[in-house]
């Protein structure tokens, strides 16, 4: 590409905006990290301590020593991954059916599904809790996993995505004698990778950080998820903010790792991957 003057100006403007936005976005993150390294006496001091003179790495060691942090991480990882994998499958199926398959009442079903997003969670929390107890699922993985799956966010996202892909791909496959199910799994799913990667990131993070529902529906230590565990720090007498921030910094690492890991998938052009297959 020829480097024109206009292009250079554009790049300068672009980077300026990117950096300004970047500073705004990263500052709170930075603050969380340094708070986790502060010793008592520095957390609420004013003017604020921007760089702790003696970083208290011991806060991180304490977090792992005081509480079964590793166990919570493993537990939460398991729950989040199971939810994400199942949800990706069912949501891409539902989304595809709603976008591409003709059946009676399609629009009504779609509206029904979207309408589930409009119900404030607090209003169904108690009734849902009653249902879970009637099913005998209280304090079990089922209670943590199953109700988290049918989230219309993913269905809606996948439907919008499938509306945008060219029809020719499926038609060719069907002419080859492939069934609808076959076409979906062999042709459609592989080209959905970027959107599935995006959805995977959302589901993983949402469930990794999920708090209120796991807190309501479990009671034993073995069922504890990470955010419920971290919340146990915030006590009746005072909040040890350095520990809470250290715990949350550790909790942030897996989510960022997942994001960086899926980033490549996210950035591949859909049409490109379609042509490749």
């Amino acid at each position, binding site marked *: 590409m020829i480097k024109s003057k206009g292009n250079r100006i554009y790049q300068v403007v672009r980077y300026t905006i990117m950096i300004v936005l970047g500073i705004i976005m990263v500052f709170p993150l930075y603050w969380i990290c340094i708070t986790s390294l502060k010793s008592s006496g520095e957390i609420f001091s*004013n003017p604020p301590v921007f760089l702790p003179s003696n970083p208290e790495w011991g806060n991180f060691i304490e977090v792992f020593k005081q509480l079964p942090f590793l166990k919570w991480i493993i537990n939460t990882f398991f729950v989040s991954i199971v939810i994400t994998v199942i949800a990706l499958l069912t949501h891409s199926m539902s989304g595809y059916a709603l976008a591409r398959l003709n059946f009676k009442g399609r629009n009504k079903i779609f509206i029904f599904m979207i309408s589930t997003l409009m119900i404030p969670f607090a209003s169904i929390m108690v009734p849902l809790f*009653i249902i879970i107890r009637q099913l005998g699922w209280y304090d079990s993985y089922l209670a943590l996993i199953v109700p988290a799956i049918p989230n219309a966010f993913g269905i809606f996202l996948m439907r919008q995505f499938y509306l945008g892909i060219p029809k020719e791909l499926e038609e060719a496959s069907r002419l080859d004698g492939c069934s609808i199910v076959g076409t979906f799994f062999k042709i459609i799913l592989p080209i959905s990778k970027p959107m599935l990667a995006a959805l995977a990131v959302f589901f993983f993070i949402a469930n990794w950080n999920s708090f209120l529902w796991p807190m309501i529906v479990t009671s034993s230590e073995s069922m504890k998820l990470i955010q419920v565990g971290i919340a146990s720090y915030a006590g*009746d*007498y005072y909040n040890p903010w350095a520990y809470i921030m250290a715990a949350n910094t550790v909790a942030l690492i897996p989510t960022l790792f997942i994001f960086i890991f899926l980033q490549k998938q996210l950035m591949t052009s859909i049409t490109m991957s379609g042509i490749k297959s």
Partner: protein
Amino acid sequence: MKKAGIIFLVAMLLFTGTVLAGKITLWKYASVVNDAILQGYVDQWNSENENEIELVLIPFAQYTSTKLPAAFSSGMGPDMFWISPGDFLRYANAGIFAEFDNYISQEQIDDMFDAAKEKVTAGGHIYGIPIGLEPLAIFYNKTLFNEYGLEAPKTWEEIFDAAEALKTGERWGIILDPVPGSYQAFTFYPWLWAEDGKVINDSWTESEINSANSIEAIDFFNKAFNEYEVSPKTLPAVSSNIAMLADGFAAMQECGIWGVKVLQNSYPDFEFGIIPIPSKDGSKLMSVAGGWIQVVNDGSKYREEAINFTMWLFYETDFLKVTSVSAGVIPTLKSVLAEATEILENPGLAKFAEIMEFAKPEPRFPPEIVKTLQDILQAVIFGGISPEEAANNAAKEIDSFLSGYKGLH
């Protein structure tokens, strides 16, 4: 309409359930101060008894606000649980608490401090055992006061003067609680009572929040936040977190007895003083004592065992002493305090033991009344509404609520 009623009844059938079989459950909020101690006694009980007790710990902020309501609204509450005074009457009115009358002797009742006894008594019955007494007072930064040559304040005027003198662009004068909620109302009671103000009359028939005395106390908050501007209006200021005083965020702070142990453990070099909350002219001293109560679910299939465990825990083991010393609070039983030298010989805690002599127990007002108090403080601090007007509005609401209230008090 009839049809709707039938659907309604059918649906409500879903709500009736029983307490789950299995272990005897004991619920409390998670706390680094006493969880391990309590677990030790539970283990001891479990090794000596057939039916095991399971201690369930729930994050503090969600314990009474969502976890307990969700459990009880589905008819499946725990067998035993800890409850705060603010929730006590609602559960008592719903008949959820088991009576201790036949299990506790007069001697054992008389061993409780009056403020503690009041907390667990309703309609002439005893419903549970009080765990600790946690009075409020004003903590101040002694080093700062010395530096500025200030004496510990004894009147409201002196509090404002000291707060103004010590306030800088980076330090507040005095932290009073700014966050709307029941805790804010709790921190307001001692100022109200010190001025002989009241929320409602003793027979719970009429509000007194708009009496001249009550309005004077509301005006104290108004002045602190708006006239002198010595108190922070927003988070992260939380008056219960004594770390703010030690970190130099403020020069004074209204906080509970628990602050003593936190300061001594985490800030050993920090020098602080404690003053009781005075009336306007300093002629009267006041405090309010919070503290949790262990109660038993009357519908529990282990009701009897749960009561036995509770009585054993508080009257036959040294749990109360150990946990009170660890948390740095006043034990609810006179005989236990008399033996707790760690508390009586700790200058900070001993000061609170003195304060406890005139402290009143936290009132057990229903949430509707607490809400009106919260509304008054919010309206006055932030809404630019005069204390008189806010109090008069609240009085109307309280009166209309009381006229329909038929529960215990």
